[in-house]
């Protein structure tokens, strides 16, 4: 459970988590194994189609939760189940405690329920004198250790067999072997008496089917079945978002959830319980059964146009499985009760701003979670949106407002960059890197060398190098982004040369263009971001061009998807943004798919080149083939690297805010690149180049890191 109150304190906790070698190894192993098992599980299934179906069905349910609640209640009560709706976590806990007292309950067994974690139900019940035992193995372990889950599906993934053996030795007062098969059996036999003696069982519910008043539970261990069968009272606690119209909705989710969670085709047990069933120890001969639905902000969320999609979540935990940050620091530091990407968003709504404000800043925006989400939730955008809301509510930090002010004023921003070029002289030592930064700027940043601002910006060269095209068949605007304009103008020049190698393409570099605005989005400066977007759309009149070509994956992805969202509430601007976005294309796709460059354009000896897939290209824009194919067309031998599409740790302002995490991710990236045996790497994002080239430079490893455009340009046949 993340409990830091300041960002500084949070960073300290993150550093401690990074030192937990066992956890890091466990999460690394899992992340790698998960990728294969998920792919195998979905081998015969069209995953994107299934996910789209789930999203559509959940959206439909979310729009009518109150109606579904009434329908569920009607059917469940007809079959003997009592149904409650609790407005708050406290109210839900009170209802359950009251049911316990009314039925003279002393002991309680629980099967896993994230909703009960959300309400801190155990604390409440124990304070009222009930004895509560968690029965899911992982949950029992963390209950005994008095801690929260670190993963939604595998709550104790952070613990080693040695820690579990020590814990079980304490519990049984007997020395236990460090043998997982034996430890599991010890738990089986220690927990069996708890089941036998319990008066009440508490479960969650994965599904609540309105048409029949049925709840559905999916488990692997079978503790859910014992919890709902042995005790005379059964209470199920579920978020109102678990309501769905029909059984079909649930069956559809079952096709996806276990596959997405752990790569299982289905869990060992899917249990459907309708109404009250016979139960011998109950005085009436049938089970006393209650279903408690928890609102706790969900019904309000269902009316929020932006955030209602959070309620689509089916709690598979896949967003944590693929998150590079979760993999480094684990769930106790990457979530409050709910962990992973969904946890960052859910924490704000269910546990408040204080718990969420540091967490939401710790997101790279790499989009891995969105790509794997079983319900198609746009998690990276929502995380940034929560960040923006918190800043709007709490006040924006000074530096963040200041950056917003600078970036939205193009002339001021560009003047500052040009002044930096003059001022940096003493600190570059004549190299392309900033060598002697003052310590207060450089603290924790020395894991990579930072580039110097170029002697001449691309915009100042443009008139000199601009190709003159007499009979243009295509009109193209170049969007450079700040880094390529001021730091790496050679990447832009290379792109111009490649595009100019095909006749009939007229290029423009609209001088009014400025930063795309993604950094402001990352910092939660939404209003300044809107102003900047509007500025860029005025500077580049989309109607004048067939394409707006961008050499920066991050800019391209943001221009294409981000701008439309920024103006969602302004129809005229939204239309303009859609027109603009429609023309935006990344360099590799433009060159390969539009210009259709082939191997005839290139010459020169082959060499090995590996590749880094920028997050905003491979996931943000779904472009994976074009850059790799182009390297081949240019006669280079492309050597794939391990985890090619895992983030390099740059994340723009992220790497400044969380340098320790950025450093770790960069370290993995460099190791994977070196392991290919190549000594050159291509990519399509200047940010990634800054990070990776800077990393190699800092560790003094000779490794060429360049933009795809540069590799193509140097191999173009001279005409």
């Amino acid at each position, binding site marked *: 459970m993340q409990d830091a109150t300041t960002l500084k304190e949070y960073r300290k906790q993150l550093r401690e988590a990074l030192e937990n070698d066992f956890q890091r190894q466990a999460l690394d192993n899992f992340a790698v194994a998960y990728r294969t098992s998920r792919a195998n599980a979905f081998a015969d299934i069209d995953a994107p189609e299934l996910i789209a179906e789930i999203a559509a069905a959940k959206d439909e349910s979310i729009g009518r939760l109150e109606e579904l609640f009434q329908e569920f209640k009607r059917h469940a009560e007809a079959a003997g189940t009592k149904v409650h709706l609790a407005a708050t976590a406290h109210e839900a806990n009170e209802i359950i405690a009251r049911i316990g007292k009314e039925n003279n309950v002393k002991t309680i067994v629980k099967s896993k329920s994230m909703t009960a974690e959300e309400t801190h139900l155990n604390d409440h019940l124990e304070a009222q004198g009930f004895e509560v035992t968690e029965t899911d193995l992982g949950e029992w372990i963390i209950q005994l250790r008095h801690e929260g889950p670190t993963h939604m599906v*595998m709550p104790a993934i952070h613990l080693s067999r040695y820690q579990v053996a020590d814990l079980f030795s304490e519990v049984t007062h007997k020395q236990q072997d460090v043998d997982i098969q034996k430890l599991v059996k*010890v738990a*089986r036999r220690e927990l069996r008496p708890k089941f036998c003696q319990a008066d009440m069982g508490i479960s969650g519910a994965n599904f609540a089917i309105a048409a029949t008043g049925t709840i559905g539970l999916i488990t692997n261990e079978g503790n859910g079945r014992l919890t709902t069968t042995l005790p005379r009272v059964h209470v199920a606690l579920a978020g109102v978002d678990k309501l769905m119209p029909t059984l079909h909705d649930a069956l559809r989710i079952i096709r996806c959830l276990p596959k997405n969670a752990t790569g299982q*085709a289905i869990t060992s047990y899917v249990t459907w319980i309708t109404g009250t069933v016979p139960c011998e120890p109950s005085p009436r001969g049938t089970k006393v059964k209650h279903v408690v639905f928890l609102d706790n902000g969900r019904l309000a969320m269902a009316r929020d146009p932006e955030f209602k999609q959070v309620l689509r979540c089916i709690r598979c935990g896949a967003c944590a499985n693929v998150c590079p940050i979760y993999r480094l620091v684990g769930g106790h530091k990457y979530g409050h009760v709910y962990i992973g990407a969904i946890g960052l968003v859910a924490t704000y709504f269910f546990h408040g701003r204080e718990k969420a404000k540091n967490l939401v800043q710790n997101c790279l925006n790499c989009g891995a979670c969105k790509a794997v989400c079983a319900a198609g939730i746009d998690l990276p955008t929502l995380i940034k949106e929560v960040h923006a809301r918190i800043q709007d509510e709490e006040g924006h930090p000074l530096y963040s407002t200041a950056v917003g002010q600078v970036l939205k004023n193009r002339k001021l921003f560009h003047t500052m960059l040009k002044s930096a070029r003059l001022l940096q002289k003493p600190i570059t030592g004549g190299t392309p890197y900033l060598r002697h930064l003052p310590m207060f700027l450089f603290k924790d940043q020395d894991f990579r060398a930072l580039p110097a601002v170029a002697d001449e910006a691309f915009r100042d060269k443009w008139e000199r190098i601009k190709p003159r095209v007499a009979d243009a068949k295509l009109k193209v605007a170049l969007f450079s982004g700040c880094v390529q304009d001021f730091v790496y103008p050679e990447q832009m020049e290379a792109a111009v040369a490649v595009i100019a190698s095909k006749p009939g393409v007229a290029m423009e570099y609209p001088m009014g263009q400025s930063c795309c605005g993604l950094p402001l989005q990352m910092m939660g400066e939404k209003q300044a971001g809107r102003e900047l977007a509007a500025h860029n759309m005025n500077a580049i009149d989309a109607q004048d061009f067939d394409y707006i070509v961008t050499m920066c994956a991050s800019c391209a992805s943001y221009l294409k998807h981000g701008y439309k969202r920024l103006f969602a509430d302004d129809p005229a601007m939204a239309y303009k943004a859609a027109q603009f976005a429609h023309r935006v294309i990344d360099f590799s796709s433009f060159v390969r798919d539009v210009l259709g460059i082939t191997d005839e354009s290139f010459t020169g000896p082959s060499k090995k080149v590996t590749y880094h897939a920028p997050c905003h290209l491979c996931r943000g824009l779904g472009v994976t083939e074009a850059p790799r194919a182009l390297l081949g067309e240019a006669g280079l031998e492309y050597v794939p690297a391990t985890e090619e599409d895992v983030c390099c740790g740059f994340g723009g302002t992220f790497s400044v805010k969380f340098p320790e995490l950025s450093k770790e991710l960069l370290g993995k990236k460099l190791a994977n690149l070196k392991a290919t045996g190549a000594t050159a790497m291509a990519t399509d994002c200047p940010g990634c180049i800054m990070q990776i080239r800077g990393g190699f430079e800092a560790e003094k490893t000779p490794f060429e890191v360049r933009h795809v455009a540069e590799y193509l340009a140097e191999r173009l046949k001279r005409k």
Partner: protein
Amino acid sequence: MTTPNLVEKLTAKAGLVSATVRCVASMDEAMAYVADVCVGKEACQILASGCDAPLSGTAEALCETKQDKIICAPEMPDEAMAALSAHCAERGVKLITSGMRAHLGGIDIGLTMAAAGIAETGTVVIRSLNEEVRLASMIAEIHIAVLPARAIVADSYALEPRLVEWMGQPDFTAFVTGPSRTADIERVLALGVHGPLELHILILEDK
């Protein structure tokens, strides 16, 4: 899909999740198999994974309650019960059909009739409004389900109309796929954490 294809698919998929699948030509053959499995197994199968592991007082006491070799077979058709009784008597195995709450420490075999099978996932579907059936499939060390071949459907969607019909009144139905499992400690798979350690599916061929 035709029945033989469904049988084949269910067999393959159930095998992937450590279930044992056998085709049997008659109910008598099925019941002989059940009795044989019971005779062949160790008195308490938890032994295999360390009954020697030290337990706390309460857990030890519950373990003591399991003495005889027991098969619990609630709600089986008369034909099956007659055959099973004979096989059990011959082999000295105790056969019960009720009173499962007296055996919460565990029994050897819980025998059930599956209402359906789902080929796509290798699943047996157990309806258990009767508490004895529910407990037999949860408490036993080995759960054996008899599944008529004609009751196998291709996927869960194909079963949907029947499930909805069952849910029209109080009902407790489960999809059971392989034995109970966990990977909660270091993601190492362990079978039989709370439920059965083994699942056997006996596919009863159509006559």
